[in-house]
């Protein structure tokens, strides 16, 4: 079942769609709208500490003074193409793994903080293949399906999110550090006054300088990567 839906996602229902008597594994990923997002630290201290296995100051968003609060997101899709691409992902997942049942739902329109924006469930005879298939599907959805989010901030303004690169940890064909991540500001230059606006770095400057901003996707660890063709 593949669906774009303006109504809230019922995760329990989505999971029930993949129940199959020949499957011993049902895996579901639910992507939710993050209310609090830590801004990147000015230097690489956090990353260095993490690499060294040391405690990371400011690692918790709740203790990070430089964080941003999202009130809600607005998702937009090129619906016709999004459905075509999601169907292609299903076909490829079924080719790669013994997927018995599959459900992929993405919400569109306004999504309040902490609500689900996407749910992907698969059932397979065994758990390892179910985990792999579900992970592959959400990673590919984030790369291939024409859906965009606009973040609306509690403090100030909003912006469309257009990540153009980064160190994606999805394990696919990312090109790593030479990729950029760019955020397209909605706010006009000169009106930026808040943490939200601080994020909305000037697009052209970001492009020319290779500026990297924070990870911006609804699941914490995602960063965009190179697009891989099916």
């Amino acid at each position, binding site marked *: 079942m593949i669906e774009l839906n303006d109504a809230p996602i019922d995760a329990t229902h989505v999971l029930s769609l993949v129940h199959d008597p020949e499957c011993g594994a049902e895996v579901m990923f639910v*992507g939710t709208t993050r209310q609090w997002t830590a801004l990147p630290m000015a230097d690489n201290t956090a990353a260095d500490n993490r690499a060294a296995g040391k405690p990371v100051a400011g690692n918790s968003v709740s203790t990070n003074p430089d964080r941003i609060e999202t009130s809600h997101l*607005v*998702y*937009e*899709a*090129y*619906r*016709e*193409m*999004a459905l*075509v*691409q999601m169907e292609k992902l299903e076909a490829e997942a079924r080719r790669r793994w013994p997927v018995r049942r599959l459900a992929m739902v*993405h919400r569109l*329109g306004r999504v309040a903080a902490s609500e689900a*924006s*996407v749910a992907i469930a698969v059932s397979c005879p065994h758990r390892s293949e179910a985990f792999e298939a579900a992970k592959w599907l*959400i990673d590919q*959805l*984030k*790369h*291939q*399906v*024409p*859906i*965009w*989010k*606009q973040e609306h901030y509690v403090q100030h303004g909003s*912006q*469309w*999110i*257009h*990540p*153009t690169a980064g160190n994606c940890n999805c394990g696919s064909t990312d090109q790593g550090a030479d990729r950029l991540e*760019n955020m*397209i500001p*909605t706010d006009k230059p000169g009106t930026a006054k808040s943490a939200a606006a601080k994020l909305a770095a000037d*697009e*052209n400057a970001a*492009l020319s300088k290779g500026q990297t901003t924070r990870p*911006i*996707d*609804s*699941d914490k660890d*995602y960063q*965009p990567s190179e*697009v891989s*063709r099916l």
Partner: protein
Amino acid sequence: MTRRSTTKGYDLTHHATHPDDTHSQCGMHAVEVQLFAAAAERAGVRQLTVPVPPAASLAELRNRLVQVCPKLKALVANSRWAVDCEFVELDFVINGDTAIAMIPPVSGG
């Protein structure tokens, strides 16, 4: 939010004689480009008409799109293109009657 979900297809063999085609004198064809997210926001519309010469590639269309709407320049550089709901490369030759969309970096999920 409402949006035209399909692009009007153009029959290029007849389009040059269309009375509204201001480019017919110079052999140009009008191509409709669908825009989304920040691209639509910047352009202020969800669809732009771009004049291109016959058998133009998407690379050519892309350049002319920026001429029509300079605000899209930076975003165009990072965007992919779709023809009839499939991603295509910039050397794709536009041959009429297709839905052409500029696909800025996606951020679903």
